[in-house]
C-alpha cells in the first residue's frame, strides 16, 4: 500500500486560495469550515513590509495526536488507505477532543454558529441526517471515512480526498493532475493549484516525485517538534508560521 503524501512548494504558491475553494466545493464544506486553509501574515513596515502565506491541509500525521485522544476510535489512521487519518461519522460522539489535540488546527465542528448570515444550513436544509444539503452536493459519500456532507454533532476534516485517491491505479507513484489518465484521482486542492505548488504521491516509493522534491528541495514538516510527523511536506522559504502576536490595539 502506498503512503500518501503531499508536498507544497511555498516558492511557487501565490496564496490564491484556489486549493481552499476547490476543497470546499469538492467536499461541500460550509463557509469558514476550511479543511484546506491559506493563512496570511503581514509583517514589517513600509517600505520593507512583507506578506507571507501558508496553505494548510490536514497533515495526515504519521503519529497523529488526534487519533491518540479519540475515546471512540472514530478518528483513526488507516494504513490500508495510504495512512490517511479519517473520522468515522457513524462513531464520532462530538467530544471535540481531537480538535483540542491537533496541533495544526485543521478540524472542524460544523455544528456551530454560522460564520455568515443568512445561514446556508437554513437555506439548504439537511436531508438524510446531513447538516445541510447544498444543491451542488458531491455524489460521493462514505461516512465511515468522513466523506460527504457531515451529519450533526461530528467532527470533519480533510480526507486527502480519499474518494478520488482511492480510485487511482494501485502502484501509481505520483498522482499528477497534468496526466489526463490520472487527473480524476488527484485531490481537489492539488488538481487545481494554478502555479503547481502542490504535489501528491507515494512517500513509500523512493522514486516518486514527491520524494524527489523533498530530497532535492529540502522538504520540511511543520511543527516537527510535536512529534506528529506530518505526511505533508513544505518546500521553499517561509515554511513556518510566525509566533502569534496579538493585533496592535492602537
Amino acid at each position, binding site marked *: 500500500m502506498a503512503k500518501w503524501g503531499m508536498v507544497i512548494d511555498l516558492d511557487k504558491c501565490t496564496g490564491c486560495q484556489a486549493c481552499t475553494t476547490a476543497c470546499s466545493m469538492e467536499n461541500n464544506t460550509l463557509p*469558514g*469550515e476550511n479543511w484546506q*486553509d*491559506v*493563512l*496570511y*501574515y*503581514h509583517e514589517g513596515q513600509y517600505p520593507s513590509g512583507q506578506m507571507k*502565506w*501558508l496553505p*494548510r491541509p490536514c497533515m495526515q500525521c504519521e503519529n497523529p*495526536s488526534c487519533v*491518540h*485522544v*479519540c*475515546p*471512540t*476510535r*472514530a478518528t483513526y489512521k488507516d494504513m490500508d488507505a495510504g495512512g490517511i487519518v479519517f473520522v468515522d461519522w457513524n*462513531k*464520532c*460522539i*462530538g*467530544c*471535540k*477532543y481531537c*480538535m*483540542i*489535540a*491537533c*496541533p*495544526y*488546527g*485543521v*478540524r*472542524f*465542528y*460544523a*455544528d*456551530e*454558529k*454560522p460564520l455568515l448570515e443568512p*445561514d446556508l444550513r437554513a437555506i439548504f436544509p439537511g436531508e438524510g441526517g446531513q447538516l445541510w444539503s447544498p444543491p451542488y452536493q458531491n455524489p460521493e459519500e462514505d461516512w465511515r471515512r468522513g466523506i460527504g456532507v457531515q451529519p*450533526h*454533532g*461530528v*467532527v470533519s476534516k480533510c480526507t486527502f480526498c480519499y474518494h478520488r485517491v482511492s480510485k487511482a491505479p494501485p502502484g501509481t507513484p505520483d498522482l499528477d493532475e497534468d496526466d489526463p489518465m490520472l487527473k480524476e484521482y488527484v485531490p481537489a486542492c492539488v488538481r487545481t493549484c494554478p502555479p503547481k505548488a502542490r504535489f501528491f504521491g507515494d512517500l513509500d516509493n523512493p522514486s516518486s516525485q514527491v520524494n524527489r522534491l523533498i530530497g532535492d528541495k529540502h522538504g520540511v514538516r511543520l*511543527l516537527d517538534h*510535536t512529534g506528529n510527523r506530518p505526511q505533508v511536506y513544505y518546500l521553499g522559504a517561509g515554511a513556518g*508560521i510566525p*509566533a*502569534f*502576536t*496579538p*493585533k496592535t490595539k492602537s
Partner: protein
Amino acid sequence: MSNEAVLQDAPRGGGMPILTLLIALIAIGLGVYTSLPLFSEGHAAFNTSSNVVWGLPVVAYVFLALSSTGLAMVSSLAMVFGWKDFYPIAKRCLWLAVTVLIAGFISLALELGHPFRMLWAIPLNLQIQSPLFWMGVWYLIALIFMIVKLALLHRDEWSTSRSRTVGIATFVSESLAAVTLALVFGMMAMRPYWYGSFVPVYFLVTAALSGVAFATLFAFFAHRLGTTSMSARMKHLMTDLMPKIFAALLGTVLVLAVARVITGLWSNQPEISLVTRHFVDSPWFHVQLWLGMVLPFILLLMPKLRVQPLIQVLASVLVLLGVFIGRYEYIVGGQLIPLWKGTWYPDLIAYTPSLTEWGIVIFGVGVGLLIYAVGTWMFRLDDAPADAR
C-alpha cells in the same frame, strides 16, 4: 436541651429540604428554558466554535467532577483513613460527590455531539490511549463504588471489611479520575497553557479545596446555617477541624495560583504569557484572586471569625466562585490563541458563553440538587457510626 434531643428534632437528613427542592426545581426549569435553543438549533446555540471548542459546559463539568473528587476525599478522611472526627459529614459528602458528578455528567453530555452514541461507542472501541477514555472509566467506576458504598452505609456497614474496601476503591478511582482529567489537558503539548506534569497535582489540590468548600457549605446548609442542631462531634468538626483544613488548603492553592500567574506572565511563550495577561487584565481574575481566595483565606485565618458558621458559608461560596473562575480561565485559556489562523484571526479569540450554555449548566446543577434533595430525605446523611455520633 440535650444534644440527643436536638438530634431527634433535626430532620433526618438535614435541614431545609423543601428549600433545596425548590431551588432544584427552579434551576431545572430555568435550565430547560434557557437551553431550549439547543433543541431547535443544536450546538449553533453555543458560542463555542471550531476555535474555542470546549466552552462553559466543559468548564462546569470539570468544576463539578473535580468537586466530586474533592468531596470523595473529604468523606474518605473518615472512611478510608480512619480519621473518625470526619464521620459526621462522611455520608453527606459521599452523596454530594455522587450528585455533583451527575450534574457534571449532564453538563458534559449535552455538550457532546452524540451523547447516546457515547454509551456504546466508547465501550465498544476501548481506545485505551485516550486520557478521555480513562477519565470516563474512572469516574464511572467511582460513581458505581460510591453508590455501593452508600448502600452499605445505609445498612450501617460503616467499617466492615467490604465497606472499607469499597471506600478505598472509591477514593482511588475518584483520585485517578481527577488525575486523568488533569491529563486530558496536561498532556496536550500543543496547548502550552495546559501542558505540564504539574497539572494533576494542581487538579487534586484544587479538587480537595472545592470538596471542602462544598462539604462546609452543605453541612451548614443542612443545619440551618448554624451549629445549634449539630452533635457535639459535628460541631467540633465544623468549628475547629474543617475551617483549619479549609484554610490550609486554600493557602496552598493560593500559593500555587499566584505561582502560576507569575510564571505565566513571565513566560516568553505567547500561548502562555498572552493568555495569562489577558486574564489578569480582566475583572474576573480579581474576583477570583481577591474575593475568591485572599478574602476567604483571611476570614479563615482569623480564629474568631472562622468558627462562625456564616463566615464559613461565606468563605465556601467565595471559594467555589473562585475555583469556578479558575477552571474557566484554565480551560478556555488553553484555546484563546488562534491555532494556525494567521490574519483570519488577528487577535485572541473572543468567547463568552451563550445563554444556552449557561442553561445547560444550570440544568445540570438543578438535577444534581434534586438528587441531593431526594438523598437528604431518604438517606440520613448526618448518620455516622455509633461510636462517632
